């Protein structure tokens, strides 16, 4: 071995050692989550937790995940997020709209920690947002409900009057109206994401008002249980498939698939390419899944719904396509026009035909 070859091999060894070092010596990446309900809600928080487990599976001992459940929206969220940051989590997912300001505040305090906030619209250097186009799923639900309703009344349990929920109500109404001009939609605001007793009462109130479809924007399966008890009332699984209630009352569902997103983002954090972005995935990207349409739905309606799903997925059709007017009768979208994402993300009005006032 001459001197040159010795130097080369030493250098090579050094390079290998240096590049290999972080992978071997680095501690696993700690990833934290906060949930608005219990992981056992079988809906929203359950689905986020399933995605967390999928990410854990994917990366094995390269990451350590933890979560705090039942975090109330408001000041307590700040405490929970701070706790996760102090425990050394380098990537933290805040999974409810109401965590927005708390996440912004805590992200400011921990500039070296990466934050991700679901369904919000405030970003920062270390704060990304991600959301799913749930309204695409609602368009399909509206089509099925509009075709199948006997009473021409569709009930909708709203959680809070925020853009995501308003989009859902509008999308259901527009598509139900398209296939059934006599249809009307009744909205009840529960002012909670998770309160089984209240959700059950809200479902019962809508059923008593003659609704034979009860759509929920809350997280528990209580409305499903109530609809089942009532008999000829149909529902859709919300956030999770809620397949335990199929084929009736649950006739289909909108499933939130967070797993690909969590796997991608955690991977980016691991290899250092993570950037604060705003992601808004839909049926096309696989973030919004449509659960099996059950046999309680007539075959031709099922076919129509699936065709609509394909057109939305391919980008051929946007659920908000003009001509559309606002509730007060003013023009919103001209013939064939579709809204910008920014406008959609801040939707704060009902479309023409939805009865009732949108609480401010």
């Amino acid at each position, binding site marked *: 071995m001459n001197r040159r070859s010795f130097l080369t091999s030493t250098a090579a060894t050094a390079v290998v050692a240096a590049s290999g070092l972080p992978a071997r010596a680095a501690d696993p990446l700690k990833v934290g989550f906060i949930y608005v309900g219990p992981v056992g809600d079988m809906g929203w928080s359950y689905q986020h937790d399933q995605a967390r487990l999928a990410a854990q599976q994917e990366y094995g001992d390269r990451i350590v995940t933890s979560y705090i459940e039942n975090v109330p929206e408001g000041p307590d969220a700040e405490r929970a997020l701070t706790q996760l940051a102090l425990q050394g989590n380098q990537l933290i997912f805040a999974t409810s709209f109401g965590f927005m300001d708390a996440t912004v505040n805590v992200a400011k305090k921990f500039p070296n920690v990466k934050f991700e906030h679901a369904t919000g619209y405030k970003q920062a250097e270390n704060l990304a947002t991600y959301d799913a186009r749930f309204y695409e799923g609602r368009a399909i639900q509206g089509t099925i409900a509009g075709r199948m309703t006997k009473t021409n009344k569709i009930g909708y349990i709203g959680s809070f009057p925020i853009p995501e929920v308003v989009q859902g109500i509008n999308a259901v109404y527009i598509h139900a109206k398209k296939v059934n001009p006599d249809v009307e939609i009744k909205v009840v605001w529960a002012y909670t994401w998770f309160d089984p*007793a209240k959700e059950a009462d809200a479902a019962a109130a809508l059923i008593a008002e003659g609704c034979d479809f009860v759509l929920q924007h809350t997280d528990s399966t209580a409305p499903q249980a109530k609809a089942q008890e009532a008999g000829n009332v149909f529902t859709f699984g919300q956030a999770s498939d809620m397949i335990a209630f199929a084929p009736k009352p649950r006739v289909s569902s909108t499933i939130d698939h967070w797993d690909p997103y969590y796997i991608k983002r955690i991977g980016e954090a691991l290899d250092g390419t993570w950037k604060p972005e705003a992601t808004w995935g839909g049926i096309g990207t696989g973030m919004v899944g449509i659960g099996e349409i059950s046999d309680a739905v007539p075959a031709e309606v099922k076919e129509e719904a699936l065709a609509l799903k394909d057109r939305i997925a391919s980008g051929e059709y946007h659920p908000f396509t003009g001509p559309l007017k606002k509730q007060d009768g003013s023009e919103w979208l001209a013939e064939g026009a579709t809204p910008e994402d920014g406008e959609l993300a801040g939707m704060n009005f009902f479309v023409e035909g939805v009865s009732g006032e949108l609480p401010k």
Partner: protein
Amino acid sequence: MIIGGIDIITLISMLMVASTPVLLAATGELVAEKSGVLNLGVEGMMITGAVAGFATAVSTGSPVLGFVGGALAGAAMAMLFAILTQVFLSNQTATGLALTLFGLGLSALIGKPFEGVRPPATGKVPFGPLSDIPVLGRILFSHDWVVYLSLLLVAVTWAFLKFTRAGLILRAVGENHDAAHALGYRVIAVRCAALAFGGALAGLGGAYLSLIRVPQWTEGMTAGAGWIALAIVVFASWRPERALIGAYLFGGITALQLQLQAAGYAIPVHLLSMAPYVLTIVVLVLLSVVHRRGVQAAPAALGRSFHAAS
């Protein structure tokens, strides 16, 4: 019968179902407070009853056994409180709050395997042709048996406190435990019995929530119902018949506001949600005004520990 776009009959029958959990819990707490013990752990006993009732019903397939299990679990929690406050003379307020926190945690632990499980259904009581009577049939004869049990328990509690010797002793213990003790009544035993009754009813109320009103088990599902029950006892100025009014009023507010919304009314939801607590404060003020004229509503020994030697 539809008034102002609202089906009154449906509203009343929904209201009765929505109010039953708090009615049961309030009636139980009222008896405990009449004996002179303030148990702030109602929420904890309710949620323990909810999970125990659910678990029993699912395991055995019998809703009736579920309710028995819920009541027993509530009573067991109350006995824990009784041992701490009556035997070891711990502070009732602090112990009650601890019982609530303990119950919430314990129920979440027990309930994990029961999340997403469906309980066996409890049917309506078959009244035959009676339930076909217009108006009254729907209101009075269209419920499950627990609704009737809750009404019966209010009547029994009222009669017990007003007419029976045992009820008189219980009230004596609550008004002046030293005098009752001097007369030879066993103050601690009476209070333990009253607490157990209170716990059993709170547990029954919780089981009603998880087995009938929702029906499913989810963590933290009582969502403050226990605190409403405590407010109702004060609102009722410690009278069972008024507790019935209070429970139907307070429990009904949720059902009412949702029903109003469904009927298309724009209503101030937040104002209605705080109404029970505002009304309770108003009642407290009124009571203290009456109190100055020499009438007392609260049991005189409420919240005071008893020790035979002191």
